[in-house]
């Protein structure tokens, strides 16, 4: 129980030395390490926070970009769809128009062909009818009939209207050539004289006459001078009928509704 003062002094010194050694080898490095690690942790936390902020920002940016891209894509897609729809409609319309125009052309062509055929048939028929008529009347024509024709011509000369008479007179007055009288058969002397008398009476003059035969007239007589022509013949009737047929056809086709 006694205190050894040398030991006490030695232990105080020992303790102080231990304090110094432990400060050097334990507390200082450990505290330093802890401080450094805490600094590192703080730095890391700050870094992590910064990175998080950055990441959030980038995420936001990416999101916006994505949305913009989606919008753009949708717009482009819509536009493309609309354009293709328009194009489709246009093509369909074009095809429809083409089909319609082709159909119209076809209709027109077939109508034209039909009309041509009809026209040809009508023309042929007409020609046949006139040929038959001409043949039949030519066969029937005789001196008797000629005489009757000359009588009809003379009658007609007598029955000329004032207007016609004036034209006739004007045509003959300015003419020094003989008046040409053509007939299908040779006219007898009596009828030639009757014609001359009738003309003389109308003109109140005695012009030169020249009588010619022309079988194409088909029992008829034609009197002509300076372009003025006065005639009575079956051929004349037929010609006038033939001329009037196309006019009639035209009138009929105009009054009828157009074919569809």
């Amino acid at each position, binding site marked *: *129980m*006694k*205190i*050894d*003062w*040398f*030991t*006490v*002094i*030695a*232990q*105080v010194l*020992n*303790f*102080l*030395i*231990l*304090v110094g*050694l*432990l*400060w050097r*080898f*334990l*507390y200082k*490095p*450990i*505290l*330093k*390490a*802890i401080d*450094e*690690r805490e600094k*590192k*942790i703080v730095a890391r936390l700050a870094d992590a926070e910064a990175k998080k902020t950055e990441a959030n920002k980038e995420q936001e940016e990416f999101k916006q970009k994505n949305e913009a891209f989606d919008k753009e894509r949708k717009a482009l897609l819509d536009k493309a769809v609309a354009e293709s729809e328009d194009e489709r409609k246009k093509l369909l319309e074009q095809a429809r128009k083409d089909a319609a125009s082709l159909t119209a052309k076809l209709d027109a062509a077939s109508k034209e062909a039909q009309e041509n055929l009809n026209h040809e048939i009508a023309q042929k028929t007409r020609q046949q009818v006139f040929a038959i008529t001409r043949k039949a009347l030519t066969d029937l024509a005789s001196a008797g009939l000629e005489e009757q024709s000359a009588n009809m011509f003379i009658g007609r000369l007598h029955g000329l209207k004032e207007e016609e008479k004036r034209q006739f007179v004007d045509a003959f007055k300015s003419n020094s050539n003989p008046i040409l009288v053509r007939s299908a058969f040779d006219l007898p002397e009596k009828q030639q004289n009757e014609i001359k008398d009738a003309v003389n009476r109308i003109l109140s003059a005695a012009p030169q006459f020249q009588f010619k035969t022309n079988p194409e007239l088909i029992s008829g007589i034609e009197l002509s001078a300076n372009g003025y022509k006065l005639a009575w013949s079956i051929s004349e009737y037929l010609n006038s009928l033939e001329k009037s047929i196309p006019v009639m056809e035209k009138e009929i086709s105009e009054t009828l509704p157009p074919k569809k």
Partner: protein
Amino acid sequence: MKLSPDQTIFWSYGFFNINLTLVTTWGIMLLLVLTSAIITRKLKTDMHISRWQCILEMVVTGINSEIKGVGLDSPQLYIGFIGTMFLFIATANVLIVFPYYQAPTGSLSTTTALAISVFLAVPFFGIKQRGIGTYLKSYLQPTFIMLPFNLISELSRTLALAVRLFGNIMSGGMIVAILLSITPFIFPIVMQALGLLIGMVQAYIFSILATVYIAAAVQAPPKNSDKKDLVTKK
């Protein structure tokens, strides 16, 4: 029967003698310093550290927080003294698990030396922090009549520190020694385990009391200083 390791003397020359207490203390010092040096040689400042470094850091931060808990705001100024005191006493007391080991803290000379260290450290830190005048004036608080009582208090608490630690550790060793002669089986082990607990508790008490004394010296009681200001103004 030897009560103290002081009585085992290896070498003596007049006033000087090398006894078991000193030898054991050197051994403990060597152990502490070598361990610390080996571990702190490869300190890492990364997130992943070695388990030994982790243990040391836990010890150091634990001591730091205890010092802070007592009321000292800058524990790194005092950890050298207080921490070393705790580690030395704790190590000396824990090593009683080894047979034939006699704790140096079971010697009144060692505990006296530690108590004297505290006795000297209190004015050292007090003067360092507050200046010599202010520190010495604190012995006259609340009035100069209190000066002898303050002085007695300083001495008596130092004596109490020394005797408390010595008594606890010595008695522990004594109990085990006595029990070994009475009931040599099992029971001494229980007492030895109890001795370990007592050793740790005493290390803690000694260090905490030293911290409290230092804190009291470093920090002026606010009420007293207010009073003093009023008195000087009058």
